């Protein structure tokens, strides 16, 4: 940045900070997601940091912003706090430049240009920090979801249960199918009960995945019973015209297990 611009900003240093703090307080009233308790301290730190970038080496300034952003990100401050804060900062500067008549207009434009570049650079860096962290989080969550996807639990000899919990997308459906079939081979199950009590919505897509899974189960030589069909799920299945008649369904896991025992020529008897 040109020394003349830096000099200009420095000469107004205190005034800029005062105005910025004044205006930024209003942000808090619009955005209730900001943590109120240390709002003022953070503002203080933020504005000092912005000013600080004028003196520091580019890399050092970036590093300081990075650690500041990371800290606030972890504390749950929204990205909009930074972007709005920086936009406010720009507005304060512009106002100051244009209201002071001692500046020549040519110099004003030049200065504005420099300020734009500077502020945009800081905003871009902050946005990059945030999106990078979001993508990272998303990736970790996907991994976590993968780990909790659908175990096959052997409950009796030849009978296993797979409880499905949560929404089923194509990626998960593939994983479920693989776990299901490999589990069948491992436990030598003849009957598998797929329990959809924990699946919030059964639409055409989900039903399609379940039908495919049960067809694959049949190919490896076992049988599939769909259990845990709640009234509202039965309604949507019929209303959507999904044909599930090809494989047996039961309302509860208990009834499913009874059917499974029957299919393998066994039953539960009372010994009293």
């Amino acid at each position: 940045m040109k020394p003349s611009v830096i000099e200009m900003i420095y000469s107004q240093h205190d005034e800029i900070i005062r105005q910025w703090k004044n205006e930024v307080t209003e942000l808090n009233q619009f955005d209730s997601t900001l943590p109120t308790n240390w709002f003022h301290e953070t503002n203080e730190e933020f504005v000092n940091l912005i000013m600080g970038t004028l003196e520091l080496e580019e890399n050092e300034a970036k590093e300081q912003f990075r650690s500041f952003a990371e800290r606030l990100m972890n504390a749950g401050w929204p990205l909009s706090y930074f972007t709005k804060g920086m936009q406010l900062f720009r507005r304060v500067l512009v106002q100051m430049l244009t209201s002071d008549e001692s500046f020549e207009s040519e110099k004003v434009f030049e200065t504005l240009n420099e300020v734009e570049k500077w502020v945009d650079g800081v905003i871009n860096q902050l946005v990059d920090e945030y999106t990078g962290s979001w993508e990272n989080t998303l990736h970790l969550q996907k991994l976590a979801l993968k780990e909790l996807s659908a175990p096959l639990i052997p409950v009796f000899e030849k009978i296993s249960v797979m409880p499905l919990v949560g929404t089923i997308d194509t990626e998960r459906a593939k994983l479920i199918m693989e776990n299901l079939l490999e589990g069948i081979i491992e436990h030598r199950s003849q009957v598998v009960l797929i329990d959809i009590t924990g699946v919030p919505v059964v639409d055409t897509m989900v039903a399609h995945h379940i039908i495919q899974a049960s067809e694959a189960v049949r190919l490896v030589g076992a049988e599939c019973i769909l259990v845990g069909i709640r009234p509202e799920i039965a309604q949507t299945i019929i209303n959507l015209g999904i044909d599930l008649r090809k494989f047996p369904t039961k309302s509860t896991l208990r009834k499913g297990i009874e059917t499974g025992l029957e299919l393998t020529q066994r039953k539960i008897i009372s010994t009293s």
Partner: protein
Amino acid sequence: MRIPILKLKNYLLISVQVDLDDQTALQFQEDLLNKIHQEGSFGVVIDLTSVEMIDSFIAKVLGDVVEMSNLMGAKVVLTGIQPGVAITLIDMGIVLDEVPTALDLEQGLDKLQQELEA
């Protein structure tokens, strides 16, 4: 290459040990039908445990051989289809609806017996 067909009482047992190529599959189809005719078998178990891949052509040959055997009065059960093979068939939209299946040779024989008694 020819796939060996074993006779056990009224049944025929086949364990396919390699990924089938087209010629071997067609040869097998012919051999099996001849054997059913020769022995007057009631039931056939084809074990596919060692088969790592079934494409649409091989699937069609297998589906056909099941139907042809049925025409000749022999029930066929396919056993030991691997998870990867099953999923691949489903992905391709090949369902093999009419073909009875079982986990392994032993359960396949049980299934044949049940079906023949019924």
